[in-house]
């Protein structure tokens, strides 16, 4: 019985982690998978990101350049 409870706890934690990962990835990009070589994390996190400020909502407009 204790074994079963322990296993269910593990599964529950894993499920919560996966759901949070999906939410995080879709809304803010890959938080856990920090790819130092990719600028994506900084951009996704919105930290010091000139690009995220300068392009949001302007993509269509900039096409005219």
């Amino acid at each position, binding site marked *: 019985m204790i*074994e*079963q409870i*322990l*296993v269910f706890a*593990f*599964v529950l934690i*894993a*499920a919560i*982690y*996966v759901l949070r*990962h*999906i939410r995080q*990835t*879709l*809304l*803010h*990009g*890959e938080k*856990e*998978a*920090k*790819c*130092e*070589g*990719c*600028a*994506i994390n*900084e*951009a*996704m996190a919105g*930290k*010091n*990101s*000139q*690009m*995220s*400020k*300068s*392009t*949001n*909502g302007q*993509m*269509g407009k*900039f*096409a*005219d*350049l």
Partner: protein
Amino acid sequence: MKITSPATNRPAEATDANRATNQVALIGNPNSGKTALFNLLTGANFKVGNYPGVTVEKKSGWLKGHKILLQDLPGAYSLSPKSLDEKVTVDLVQSWRVTDQRPKAVVVVLDATNLTRNLFLTLQILEMGVPAIVVLNMMDEVRKQNIRIDPALLQKRLDAYAVIPASAKTGEGIPEIIKAIVAAPPIDEKHIPTPRLKLSDEQIAPLGEVIHYLEARSHSAAPPPLVDSLRMVADDGYREQNYPALSESEQTDLQEKIEQARKNFAEKSIEFSALESAGRYAYINKHLSQTYSDEAVSAVSFSEKVDSIISHTVWGPLILLFVLGFIFNTIFSWAEYPMGWIESAVEWLAVTVSGLLPEGVIQSLLVDGIIVGVGNVVVFLPQIILLIFFLSLLEDSGYITRMAFILDRLMNKLGLQGKAVLPMLSGFACAIPAIMASRTIENWRDRLITILLIPLMSCTARLPVYILLISAFVPQKTFLGFIQLQALVLMGMYFLGFFTAVIISLLIKHLVPQKTISHFVMELPPYRVPMFRSVWMKVYNSGKLFLVNAGSIILAISIILWFLASYPTPNENGEVSSASQVEQSYAGQLGKMIEPVIEPLGFDWKIGVGIIASFAAREVMVSTLATIYNIEAEDDEDIVPLVEAMRNETHPDGRPVYTLLTALSLLVFFVYAAQCMATFAIVKRETNSWRWPLVMIFYMTALAYVASLIVYQGGLLLGVGA
């Protein structure tokens, strides 16, 4: 970015106290080595590469040992942006019109082997009135090519705060740059920079009224009125963006003067749009060209000689095929031993844990769920490392731009523009930076098409699935003594994605014709010996990312899949085999539910569960199958090798589940299927709408299904590989 306070309406009384005094901008032409310098100055490890457009975002880092924030900006050829990445840099520079937005200093990085072109942007930056540290990068190559540069004379002629010879490759000049940044003098707010362009009186005269208007409102934080007026006349958007706070009547007044200037130019038959460029180059020729000479450009000649073969119309594509063939061959042959070691380690761990723990659910979770699930993904680490290693060599040596050049020729023949090629090639590593790299494409329509097609490029996450299926079901045949059939099939998967993208963009071109044609203009960098640090960092980061994913999301999904494949447990009295228990489990029920949909593709319910799970991460396909087959196995002592389990898997009627045809169908499905949430997120961000990620998911899933259906059913009809 909006400039909130226009230079024209703001007196120059702002002090150092409210300026961005701890910030220093790093600016330069594309592929001048900014990020390599930035990494050395800050200790960061951002990606560098020997091709233009590696950096498309602003990145920040602390200058080593100082509280000074260094900002690495995307490369720009001038302050007239043509693409989104250049716009980031230009917007930032234009924001310096507002006194309190001005940085402590600006580091202008020049490719010293190509000074004439690099000085163009330098002159524009110097006119912003911020202390400029001009870094002559790549001095090691300058010496090899016998180019003579007189930094002291250049400093004097430029009137720059400092000119420092340096090399990001050897580390030359780094301490001097740090010292110069730290000791940068405060900005002289009363000093109005002189225009650094040479125009005749006749060329300036038509601008007279605009210049007077701006002079009355100018201060040191703006570029000289002559330069501003030239840009306003050439581009209406310039006035709107940089003088937004003028009153309506002032805007009208200024616009009238601009229109008058255009008429004046027309009367004199002067082409005003190219006047700034002409003036800059005339200035460089007259005042700066004596400070350097480039008479012996041996390395460029070397690159040109090599290019005459590598980029040759006939030899080029053949060499490209040979290079790719070599890489894929190597991925199979070199990775064999380390893969075997990891497999043995995983097996040893599983057996040890089985021996230590009593039989039960905990043991099953740890062995069949976690160790087998995660372990079967981790075994592909050597292949990932090898692929990234070779991609880094291609990038850093400069060969990847030649690949783009060769493929562009083909795309041009099909009537497509080739600027998408480089981002697409980057997509072989990961779609996310590749989608961001598409910012270098000026035209929005072309850029959107590129964004939607990049996920068709086979990224490293697909590699474990490809390798697993190919090693299990494609025969180990060798042609001509060294060409492996398995490597050819693997290369075929990469080509399949690429050429499908080409065909789709061709279809779009014919269905929705474009009014304007985009031309592919790309700088071919000289061939360079890859920097060890750069290659190592790329390999290290990719390996780390793969392991972090394996230890987090793949681990979590493996636990859930183990649960879904193990529960509900049969009644205590019910004697059922492990196989039928798994079939009745939650995972089994789910797989059976979708089986009718995927059966025409040659897939059974277990593959169906794997496909559903792999929408969270493609590698999970491998761990899912490993977990299911291990729970099914009657023998709990040893773990079941995945390849063996797949080969032995049969339908209830005794037919094998996996045939060569099934494997090919599944491979094609994975080439096309949209199964990466991080990609959906970046497409949403880059297009500012969920519409385009949804379009991408729909078209890729439909394509994956139809293509697999054609492969499997077509193969059955032809009697191939069944």
